């Protein structure tokens, strides 16, 4: 007997493999999905009485291909509780060794023709079989709008004749960056929701970890794929330590390192080491290395902020995201003082800062540390108003209260 979680994971692993194999021959993703969901329905009907076939995946592919050929596709069965169906179908046994074409499917999902905002949802749906409704909630989009965007994206791939394949050598680096960015976007959407225990998005971080693992297993000689897998593990290892037993938010520097997952951290270290042996740096490896330095700093009470600042400088030079700039500012504050850091973040584009919660939370802290109490209070209020997690809102309200009394 395998556990429910193992069955669900096996089903998730299997789903994308089957879609990728069916779509590889030039079949539209949408048609592959329809045919596969009908094959699952047929499996649920026949397996309980006739027994689970020796190769469940082979059986499903044959059944799905027959549906495709027969043109019996009905759109009604599509995506209906697909995850449940798959999970039941595979609770009997783990996946067997069929060809793994999922990487090609991921490259199709992150194709330049697809709007960057739809790439992660498309991957979650086609590679992992997530239903549009839960994807929509995780990304704060209406389910109807999300369904429409996914359908449109798949139609666009079909119309352009995008194949399920790995780009050639000349295209690989930029296309891989798109794939990794889409996976990381899914991770972040899940990460924001991990502070809300009942949120439907709470498994999105593990879904992204799985997508990252598929990618780095199938592209073992790409250091950035390893870098992303390491980065997500460093973060996920700390997930349990972000809230205390009363549900209160705990910032990184106050976390109980005993609540970090040692096994995940060890995996992250191994992945990062493997990546760095390949001698080509990149954005995700740098971000992972920064997380590794934080872990080292907090586990061994070792002040390595200067090293962290250097790595942030390198990161900002190749990937000047808001997150990277704020990370640089936080490191700068430790090395050169809060005033210097404040001068730096106040040069960042105001339009990007206007609704960026982490900007105001950091500004509040930097102002407080440099004695500008009124400015600090204003920035705390702004950060509170932009928070979408109760634990963080409550944490910042306490900080504001403490300042009001100062």
């Amino acid at each position, binding site marked *: 007997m395998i556990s429910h979680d193992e069955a669900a994971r096996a089903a998730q692993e299997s789903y994308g493999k089957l879609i990728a194999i069916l779509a590889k021959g030039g079949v539209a993703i949408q048609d592959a999905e329809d045919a596969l969901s009908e094959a699952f329905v047929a499996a649920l009907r026949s397996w309980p009485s006739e027994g689970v076939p020796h190769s469940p995946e082979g059986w499903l592919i044959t059944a799905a291909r027959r549906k495709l050929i027969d043109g019996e596709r009905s759109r009604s069965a599509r995506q209906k509780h697909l995850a449940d169906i798959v999970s039941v179908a595979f609770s009997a046994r783990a996946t067997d060794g069929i060809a793994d074409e999922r990487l090609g499917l991921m490259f199709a999902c992150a194709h330049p023709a697809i709007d960057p905002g739809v790439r992660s949802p498309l991957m979650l749906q086609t590679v992992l079989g997530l239903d549009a409704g839960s994807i929509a909630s995780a990304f*704060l*989009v*209406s389910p109807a*709008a999300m369904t429409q965007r996914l359908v449109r994206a798949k139609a666009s791939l079909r119309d352009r004749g995008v194949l399920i394949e790995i780009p050639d050598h000349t295209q690989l680096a930029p296309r891989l960056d798109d794939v990794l960015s889409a996976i990381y976007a899914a991770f972040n959407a899940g990460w924001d929701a991990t502070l809300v225990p009942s949120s439907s998005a709470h498994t999105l971080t593990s879904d992204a970890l799985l997508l990252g693992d598929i990618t780095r297993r199938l592209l073992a000689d790409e250091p950035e794929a390893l870098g992303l897998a390491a980065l997500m593990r460093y973060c996920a290892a700390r997930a349990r330590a972000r809230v205390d037993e009363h549900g209160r938010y705990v910032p990184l520097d106050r976390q109980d390192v005993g609540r970090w997952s040692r096994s995940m951290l060890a995996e992250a270290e191994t992945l990062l080491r493997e990546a760095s042996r390949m001698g080509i740096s990149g954005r995700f490896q740098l971000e992972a290395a920064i997380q590794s330095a934080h872990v080292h700093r907090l586990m061994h009470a070792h002040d390595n902020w200067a090293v962290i600042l250097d790595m942030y400088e390198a990161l900002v030079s190749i990937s000047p995201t808001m997150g990277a700039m704020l990370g640089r500012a936080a490191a700068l504050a430790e090395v050169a003082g809060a005033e210097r850091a404040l001068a730096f973040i106040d040069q960042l584009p105001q339009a990007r800062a*206007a*609704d960026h919660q982490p900007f105001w939370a950091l500004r509040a802290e930097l102002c407080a540390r440099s004695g500008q109490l009124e400015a600090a209070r204003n920035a705390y*209020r*702004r950060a*509170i*108003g*932009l*928070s*979408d997690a*109760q634990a963080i*809102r409550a944490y910042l*309200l306490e900080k*504001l209260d403490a300042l009001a009394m100062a």
Partner: protein
Amino acid sequence: MKFALIIYETPSQLAKRSSPDAPAYWAAWSAYNEAMKSAGIAAGGAGLQPPSTATTVRVTGDARHVQDGPYADTKEQLGGFFIVDVPDHDVANQWAARAPVHGGVVEVRPLMTM
């Protein structure tokens, strides 16, 4: 595009308005309101007095019927609304997610254009 963010609050949230938790309750809402103004998207709205202050007026043909209390007989009650001017419905949803409703609900509706 203008949207109404319609705030439905739970009884326990509404009760905070007249409890020792009132300062934290109002601090969260005023921070939310201020963040909208500072981001340049605030386009109106109002907070409402508690549901117990409401009257419900129903006119059917010639018959008039006035009742004490709010219209909707649900656990969550209308607490107020904001009007925001944002690029699209996705952004309106993002602002809705920031409302400090604690178990309450925010309904996001596009305004009719007149």
